[in-house]
């Protein structure tokens, strides 16, 4: 397959305009570390942001950073860390799960709305993304939002671009608001809870005034091995105070240990990256978002018919589920559970053939699909940008 590597935004615009004129579908990508996600699409050429690199603006005192879309995520993370700051939404790294190599780009993080454990309190990518520049399917350069935190000027196309998987435009520059890195991170660990009690504990913690920044539960075959994790971040004095209060609040769920330092960081990184499901592809991996207290019931329904492993993030509202890579990979059971209990499931890891024949994303109501097709046509009338990567026809 032919790979097109624009040198700059104008170059990208000409390539897209040319492809639109010839109705040549393009596969939009960064460095391809997540090529094995979404619906496989049939394209003649790839358009990559690989050469659109560099941080274009960073004002720590204004908590804002802009970078060209092909800038490695790692470079953004490091630049922020130098000034004691971080991306609020804690983007996951899919490389372990997908077994891919290369440098994930900041543009893909935006395009796929990749948010990790802190999403529960600090919002998703779409909440921190305050400005974009992109090339639409006509080959026009469009901007939306800007570099200031509060901006309600005009229709919010930034939100549309976040999580549209390159089907609406080729991002060339993204601007985020950022947060200070906390002085200290500490995690409360409660052992031995079943899923229902664990989510009750997480709900109690998240419903407390103590600013929990992550809340997860890792079940174990032997219940004693189950771990429920509640993370606090901030100034040390404040973290100490809140640890004490939360321990008191959660006493009925059993005693809690405190995890700090490298070990605790590694645990949260493993949860963020779902790396416990790393294998040689024997299992399919699903990511399901639902109301937190519905998480255990949803899992129970699926586990009635499918042999599955799972864990919870976002206080129970994000279920990571691994199913045997055979038959429908559990799709029917999972879709039945989300329609009964609310929420949506994404097939994150599966062979190409399975991602072609099964719905990767939650099927939408027809009225919503009508709007989605309209929006696709309004940005990409020739249908050349990542066609079919999310849903057939958009």
């Amino acid at each position, binding site marked *: 397959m032919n790979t097109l590597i624009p040198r700059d935004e104008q170059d990208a615009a000409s390539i897209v305009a040319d492809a639109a004129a010839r109705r040549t579908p393009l596969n939009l990508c960064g460095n391809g570390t997540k090529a094995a996600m979404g619906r496989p699409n049939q394209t003649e050429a790839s358009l990559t942001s690989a050469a659109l690199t560099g941080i274009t603006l960073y004002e720590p005192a*204004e908590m804002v950073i802009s970078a060209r879309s092909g800038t490695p995520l790692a470079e953004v993370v490091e630049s922020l860390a130098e*000034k004691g700051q971080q991306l609020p939404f804690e983007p996951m790294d899919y490389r372990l799960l997908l077994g891919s190599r290369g440098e994930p780009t900041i543009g893909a993080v935006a395009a796929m709305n990749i948010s990790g454990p802190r999403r529960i309190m600090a919002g998703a990518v779409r909440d921190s993304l305050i400005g974009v520049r992109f090339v639409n399917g006509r080959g026009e350069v469009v901007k939306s939002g800007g570099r200031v935190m509060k*901006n*309600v000027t005009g229709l919010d196309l930034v939100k549309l671009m976040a999580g549209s998987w390159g089907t609406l435009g080729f991002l060339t520059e993204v601007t985020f608001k950022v947060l200070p890195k906390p002085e200290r991170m500490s995690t409360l660990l409660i052992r031995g809870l079943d899923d229902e009690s664990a989510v009750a504990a997480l709900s109690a913690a998240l419903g407390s005034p103590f600013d929990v920044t992550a809340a997860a539960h890792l079940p174990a075959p032997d219940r004693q091995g189950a771990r429920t994790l509640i993370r606090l971040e901030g100034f040390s004095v404040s973290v100490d105070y809140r640890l004490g209060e939360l321990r008191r609040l959660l006493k009925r769920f059993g005693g809690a240990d405190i995890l700090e330092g490298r070990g605790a960081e590694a645990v949260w990184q493993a949860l963020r990256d779902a790396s416990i499901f790393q294998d040689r592809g024997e299992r399919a991996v699903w990511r399901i978002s639902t109301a937190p207290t519905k998480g255990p019931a949803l899992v129970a329904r699926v586990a009635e018919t499918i042999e599955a492993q799972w864990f919870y993030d976002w206080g129970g509202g994000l279920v990571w589920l691994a199913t045997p890579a055979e038959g429908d990979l559990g799709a029917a059971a999972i879709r039945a559970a989300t329609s009964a209990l609310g929420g949506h499931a994404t097939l994150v890891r599966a062979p190409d053939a399975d991602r072609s024949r099964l719905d990767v994303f939650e099927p939408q109501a027809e009225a919503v699909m009508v709007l989605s097709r309209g929006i696709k046509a309004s940005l990409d009338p020739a249908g050349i940008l990542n066609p079919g990567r999310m849903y057939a026809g958009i």
Partner: protein
Amino acid sequence: MSIAFPTPDEAVLSRRNEILAGLGRLVAPEALIVTEDERRAFETDGLTAYRQMPLAVVLPSSTQEVSAILRFCRENGVKVVPRGAGTSLSGGAIPQADAIVLGVAKMNRVLDVDFENRVAHVQAGITNLAISQAVAHEGFFYAPDPSSQLACTIAGNIAMNSGGAHCLKYGVTTNNLLGVTMVLLDGTVVELGGAHLDSAGYDLLGLVCGSEGQLGIVTEASVRILRAAEGARPALLGFERVEDAGACVAAIIAAGIIPVALEYMDRPAIQICEAFAHAGYPLDVDAMLIVEVEGSDQEIDDMLRRIVAIAEPFRPKTVKVSQSEAESAAIWKGRKSAFGATGRVADYICMDGTIPTGQLPQVLRRIDEIAKSYGLGVANVFHAGDGNLHPLVMFDSSKPGEMEKAEAAGEDILKLCVEVGGCLTGEHGVGIEKRDLMPYQFNAVDLEQQMRVRGVFDPGWLLNPAKVFPLEGRFAA
């Protein structure tokens, strides 16, 4: 009075009786307002300098009624101006002569509160404050708090993506909205989002939030509710120079502190508010910050100590750390009365641009110069942490031409905000007020793309069509 309304459609005006009869078949008689006296209550909103009498006002009680009304309006080519409580400061709810007003204020019930999942499901006509009141008994609240929160509806908040004084920590409406039930122009009812986080497919919820009533009518909303902090207390810092206050804001942020509120007042604003509220503000400083932090008493003490230490190098002339609820209330009283107090000494228009906070001193100087060049005064009270300015351009409406001068000064100020890297509106919305300034922030391609997306929902420009997009350069999608 420089903002033009589109020319009313004579064909629609001449069919008024027929249209009223049609609407009368869809809702109860008391839900349809037709007499001139009663319609007058809806002729303007918070931007009172502009007013237009609508064809009629209809106040439906259910999603089904909204659906029937919109389908009727689409079939009959009747324009629709959605309205919450009519508190828009940008004229977002001002009617048009050939449009009906569709008000959602009757749909104001709390449908369900789920504390475990931290979500409240409400009808869209409920007031912002009523949501917080409905969950307060469990110590929860709804975070975005526009200063009109006693009156404004969540429907209007969603339309305008409203902010408030606490968004530095808690975000604006779009960050606290989980789902909506929305009626499209053809009467179709769609559910976007829900009690879960993020959605499959395109972020239509994010697109709808802030779309100023141009994509559909929201009848129900699921919003995130949060447990309130144990306490909150402010410190007041007065500075001799504007530059010092600006640098202090930057230093607080750079130290990794996100105060829950970080408010700025300049000398004229301090003088006006102190004379009105007797809040104990220093009268000998050019700039004042109110910095509020949250937590337990111990956490608050620790944080305020840090803030005072950070401020030290900028030689604050006044440092007052609140030690009690009474002192906190006094500090906030002045700030919260800013608009009312200014209204007692002058007429004013309130602008709403956002700037990169690093530009603060320079922009404030230039705002002052702009006002002076029109022979007007200006007072500044605003959210310093996020750069959202609210210059109050003061004038005397009894003097011919002064209102126009104030509008012109306001325009210059907003253009300045864009010029330094900011935007026309941080939280009040474009409405009609800033509609004609849109080309200063967006080029033709940007605006056309927005209009194309808008056109997916309303190709015939029937939904709130006088707003947001300049009248020139529009096209049927």
